[in-house]
């Protein structure tokens, strides 16, 4: 289960992370694609700009070449002019031959060489053009360039002067043609692309050479490019790792320039811009990564905090459930304790026998301890749920101290401890505050001191300091000579359920809530708790609580005041009889009815008992009652509903005082009941004095015969005496169980029923034991049927629960063997449910073996019960 949760948590986390990573990558891919796009765009734009630059440079180069040509042409033309003017052609030709060119010659219209070198035959067309007055430059493959100019004789042309440039001289002529060291450049015919010269021998056969057409690669594009432009350039990424191809017209020649320059040679300087852009984009990417990482962790943290929050909610829910459970449990437990204490009270009143009274006293003591524990838990749950309220009123400090001292003095004495009390005589007696809670606080710290002091004494010191505005800081200290508290444990002292030094204190009873409640209460009252302790030597708890002074009259000598109070108390302890009074008690729990009935027996009132709200309403119609005690929680219609219906009846009924009985004695409940229409309310377990007070208060005075305390009946005197002697009683009597176990088993000739045990659990009341026994036997079939059903269904959980119930009930009626058998089976059942899987089969086998036994033993018990208690069990 836990492992599953963990793995599902992990799965969730992984899924979450995977989603985030996916998102991250999708975005990254998107960004990278975008970056690529921008990069490409940048490059295109840059290349477009570079193309212009390259074109301009190509134009410059071509202009230089054109100028070179032009000067050659001029040289030739001036030579022609020289000949026209009569200079000897031979002289002219020799003067221009070998000066940048190879050779020169003069030719007549009929093709005959007049002077200089002879021309090749195939150039007659060129000569013809020159004979028509044109200056012609033509390239002849393998021969070179021939430039020809006309030589005039008057208006007309007599000769043509030409000059030849072979490849070597051409190279000189175009020596400025290279743009860059790494550029490949061709000079070619503008129309045909025929290559006149190239700067690199390697150009033939490589990518820059169009072998098929014997022209430079991309010549057509360049040629088209120079239409209407002097020069052009175009970037070709596919051409040998990227080259700019450029072309430029060489003016007044039939040639053009076609060149190729690697991208990086041109872009080298601009590259840095490119890199800056890339760098910025990279930075952007980095920022993005950081941002994503940040949001990733943030999201993860958010998810984690969600989980924490969930965990916290879960814990809070669990805590709430625990508190509710505790509140409910304590409420539930108070009901049976009510019964126990009530009946015990009855025993104490009615039994004169010394032994029984002793036991009953012990029951009362244990019961009250239990009740105080339950009250602790209730208080705790109230504090936890914030429902604890302070009920402030005027009170007598001495009275509080008196109550407390009586209580603790007794306990200390019982333990053989000395108990001293020192009260500052100047303290004001009349204070305003929550008397009950102050009492609780004092009792807690004093009880604590008594509990943890094995020998020595406990000193209770009451002091105070008057503050301004009529407040008193009441200082209550408990000084003991007990075991003390280790320094490191002091922090844990006030934690819930914490019990210190468990090894050493395992014998000491308690819930571990006492100090925690104390601290909470003190804080609620605006005070504080201080602890001084030396481990092994003793502790001092000091509680400081601010209280308002109602009357400055000092408390005086406390001992004397205690005595006075004791006297008053006795004086007020009036009893009464009211034989004419009619009382209706409504409770769905017969035990409670029984208790109230018993408690009121002494007052001789006429009691009518009722098991439900409906019965109650019926009774109210029939008869007039002086007071109605109405239980709050009942099936079908609850106390409040019953009251409302009763009040609706009007008349006498509406004027009858209704007192709510409730075990749910939390704060505010009184107001709730009063607002619902109840006259008063009484907390369960019902305190006999409270019950009597209630009656005295609400019964018509003419029906009540008050018996003053001084003239108490014999019974009561005994009762009181018993109470007084009890504190001096020996400590062996503390545990009734121990007493019971010491008693010899009383099987009375039978094998199944240990009557003594049964009696012990029935409060040593034979009548009750018989009642229990009767019930136990009567429920036999139903119980067995349930167990059998669960057994047949293989429903081990219910089976175990039922067997567990049987175990307890059997023991309570003295069915010790049956109980033990049930216990063994229950243990097996638990092993099946919670134990290791490998033992399961074994345990099931065990149950199968013993199951039959169980019903057999139940039957045997029944038989024996029939035999031994024929008047009880049928």
């Amino acid at each position, binding site marked *: 289960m836990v492992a599953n949760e963990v793995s599902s948590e992990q799965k969730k986390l992984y899924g979450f992370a995977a989603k985030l990573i996916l998102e991250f990558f999708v975005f990254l891919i998107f960004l990278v694609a975008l970056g690529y796009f921008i990069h490409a*765009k940048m490059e295109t734009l840059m290349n477009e700009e570079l193309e212009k630059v390259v074109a301009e440079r190509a134009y410059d180069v071509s202009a230089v070449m054109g100028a070179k040509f032009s000067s050659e042409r001029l040289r030739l033309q001036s030579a022609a002019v020289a000949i026209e003017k009569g200079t000897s052609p031979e002289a002219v030709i020799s003067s221009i031959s070998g000066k940048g060119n190879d050779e020169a010659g003069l030719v007549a219209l009929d093709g005959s060489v007049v002077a200089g070198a002879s021309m090749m035959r195939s150039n007659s067309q060129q000569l013809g053009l020159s004979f028509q007055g044109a200056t012609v430059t033509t390239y002849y493959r393998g021969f070179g360039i021939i430039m020809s100019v006309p030589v005039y004789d008057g208006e007309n042309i007599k000769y043509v002067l030409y000059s030849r440039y072979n490849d070597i001289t051409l190279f000189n002529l175009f020596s400025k043609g290279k743009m860059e060291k790494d550029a490949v450049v061709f000079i070619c015919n503008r129309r045909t692309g025929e290559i006149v010269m190239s700067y690199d021998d390697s150009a033939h056969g490589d990518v820059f050479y169009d072998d098929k057409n014997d022209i430079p690669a991309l010549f057509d594009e360049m040629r088209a490019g120079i239409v209407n432009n002097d020069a052009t350039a175009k970037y070709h990424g596919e051409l040998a790792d990227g080259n700019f191809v450029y072309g430029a017209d060489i003016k007044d020649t039939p040639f053009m320039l076609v060149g190729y320059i690697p991208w990086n040679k041109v872009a080298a300087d601009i590259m840095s811009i490119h890199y800056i852009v890339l760098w910025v984009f990279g930075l952007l990417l980095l920022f993005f990564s950081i941002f994503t990482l940040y949001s990733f962790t943030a999201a993860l943290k958010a998810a984690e905090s969600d989980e924490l929050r969930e965990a916290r909610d879960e814990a809070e829910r669990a805590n709430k459930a625990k508190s509710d459970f505790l509140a409910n449990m304590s409420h539930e437990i108070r009901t049976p304790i009510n019964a126990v204490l009530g009946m015990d009270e009855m025993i104490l009143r009615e039994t004169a026998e010394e032994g029984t009274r002793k036991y009953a006293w012990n029951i009362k003591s244990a019961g009250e301890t239990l009740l105080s524990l339950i009250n602790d838990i209730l208080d705790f749950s109230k504090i936890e749920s914030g429902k604890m309220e302070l009920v402030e009123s005027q009170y007598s400090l001495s009275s509080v101290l008196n109550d407390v001292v009586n209580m603790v003095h007794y306990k200390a004495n019982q333990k053989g401890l000395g108990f001293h009390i020192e009260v500052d005589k100047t303290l004001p007696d009349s204070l305003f505050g929550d008397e009950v809670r102050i009492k609780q606080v004092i009792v807690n710290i004093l009880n604590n001191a008594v509990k943890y002091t094995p020998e020595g004494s406990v000193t209770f010191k009451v002091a105070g300091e008057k503050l301004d505005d009529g407040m008193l800081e009441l200082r209550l200290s408990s000084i003991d000579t007990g075991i003390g508290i280790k320094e490191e444990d002091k922090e844990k002292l006030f934690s819930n359920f914490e019990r210190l030094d468990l090894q050493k204190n395992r014998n000491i009873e308690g819930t571990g809530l006492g100090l925690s409640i104390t601290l909470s209460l003190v804080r609620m009252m605006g005070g504080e708790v201080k602890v001084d302790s030396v481990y092994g030597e003793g502790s001092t708890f000091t509680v400081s609580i601010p209280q308002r002074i109602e009357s400055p009259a000092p408390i005086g000598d406390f001992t004397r005041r205690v005595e006075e109070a004791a006297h008053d108390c006795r004086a007020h302890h009036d009893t009464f009889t009211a034989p004419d009074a009619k009382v209706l008690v409504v409770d769905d729990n017969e035990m409670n009815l029984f208790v109230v009935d018993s408690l009121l027996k002494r007052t001789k009132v006429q009691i009518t008992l009722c098991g439900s709200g409906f019965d109650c309403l019926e009774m109210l119609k029939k008869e007039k009652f002086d007071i109605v005690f109405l239980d709050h929680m009942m099936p079908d219609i609850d106390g409040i509903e019953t009251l409302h219906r009763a009040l609706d009846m009007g008349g006498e009924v509406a004027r009858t005082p209704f007192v709510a009985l409730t075990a749910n004695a939390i704060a505010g409940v009184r107001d709730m009941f009063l607002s619902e229409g109840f006259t008063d309310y009484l907390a369960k377990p019902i305190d006999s004095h409270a019950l009597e007070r209630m009656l005295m208060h609400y019964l018509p005075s003419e029906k009540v015969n008050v018996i003053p305390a001084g003239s108490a009946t014999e019974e009561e005197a005994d009762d009181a005496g018993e109470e007084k002697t009890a504190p001096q009683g020996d400590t062996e009597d503390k545990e009734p169980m121990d007493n019971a176990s010491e008693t010899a088993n009383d099987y009375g000739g039978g094998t199944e029923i240990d009557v003594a045990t049964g009696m012990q659990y029935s409060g040593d009341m034979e009548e009750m034991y018989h009642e229990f026994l009767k019930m136990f036997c009567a429920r036999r079939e139903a119980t067995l049927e349930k167990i059998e059903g669960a057994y047949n269904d293989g429903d081990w959980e219910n089976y175990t629960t039922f067997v567990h119930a049987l175990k307890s009930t059997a023991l309570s009626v003295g069915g010790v063997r049956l109980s033990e058998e049930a216990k063994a089976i229950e243990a097996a059942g638990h092993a099946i449910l919670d134990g290791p899987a490998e033992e399961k089969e074994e345990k099931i086998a065990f149950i199968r073996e013993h199951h039959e036994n169980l019903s057999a033993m139940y039957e045997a018990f029944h038989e024996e019960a029939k035999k031994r208690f024929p008047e009880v069990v049928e």
Partner: protein
Amino acid sequence: MKYVDEETLGRRRRFLLLLMTVMLLFCIGVSVMHFHAPTYKERMKVGIIMQGSRGDPGWTRTHYRAIHDAGNALGLDILVRENIREHTSGFQKAIKELYESGAKYIFLTSDAYIEEMSYLAGQYPDVRFAITGVESSAPGLINYSGRFYEARYLSGVLAGRRTKTGVLGYVAPSPVAEVSRGINAFALGAQSVRPDVKVVVAWTGEHETHGSEAVKNLVGNKADIIAYHHRGREVADAAEAAGVDFIGLYEEYPELRHCLTTIEMNWENAYLSILEGTNISIQSNGSRYYWPGTIEGQVFLTPVNPRLALPGDEESLDAARARVLSGQPIFAGELYDRHGRMRCKEGESMPSKNIASDMTWLLKGVETLGRQ
């Protein structure tokens, strides 16, 4: 406590991411949009201004077709202005319109516009003007034409060997250089095969009119083969009507049975060359001219009409053409005008410049008829 569940958080985060993406896209999109370079590669516009309309046979139609095809070949937009007469406000208006439409080149298909252009060209420095004819030019103008006289020489060879009467008729508007060099070349060609041949020129005064009268006149003067220098087809139609063989000009009219051959020029190539800026010579005054001939393949004679062809015609033509192609100038050697003045010495040749603009004289052996 406010508890935000996983789903809401996820939704918020996804929304945030989406928003971020959209914003980033927007930013980047906007910035990238501003990156683009100015596009300068729009189609170039070229204007042409013609005296006639594009459908007029002969000169005008051939020019229109040629520039249209050249424009297609180079991917240019051709803007045409038709029926624009010189010395009118329409001409200036046409130029202005073309300029405002973004024309980078304006072709003028008549040398009649030259006077106005000599001062108009300067007003549009961004525009290159090209005008037909090589006789006169102005700075900034491109003069373009073909060396038709070479083809006329060849047609003269054909006519000279075919004439029976020894008289060749020639219809021409007026003795300007452009016309005279054609007549002279024709005469030279004819004389090269029949030295006693007589070329009779009938002037029409105009390019477009009086062709049929001239033809009648020439026929009346025993001319049995007629050549002409007219823009349209009037002369051709008249010769056909008269049943006289003639030398066609500019374009072939296949329905005319008496057309021996036609002198044509590849104007499309001419326009391509001009637009590509190649083969343009610079004259000393800074104007540029484009004047290709037989060697460049721009001017040629169509094959002799097979129905009329005589044995030896093509062979004679081929021989003459070979001479031209070898670079032998037409106007070279001893040349006398009809007044007996020597225009060229033996062993010399006449430069193109002179041929283009100075040759207003007529060769010895050419006779003229006045208008009747």
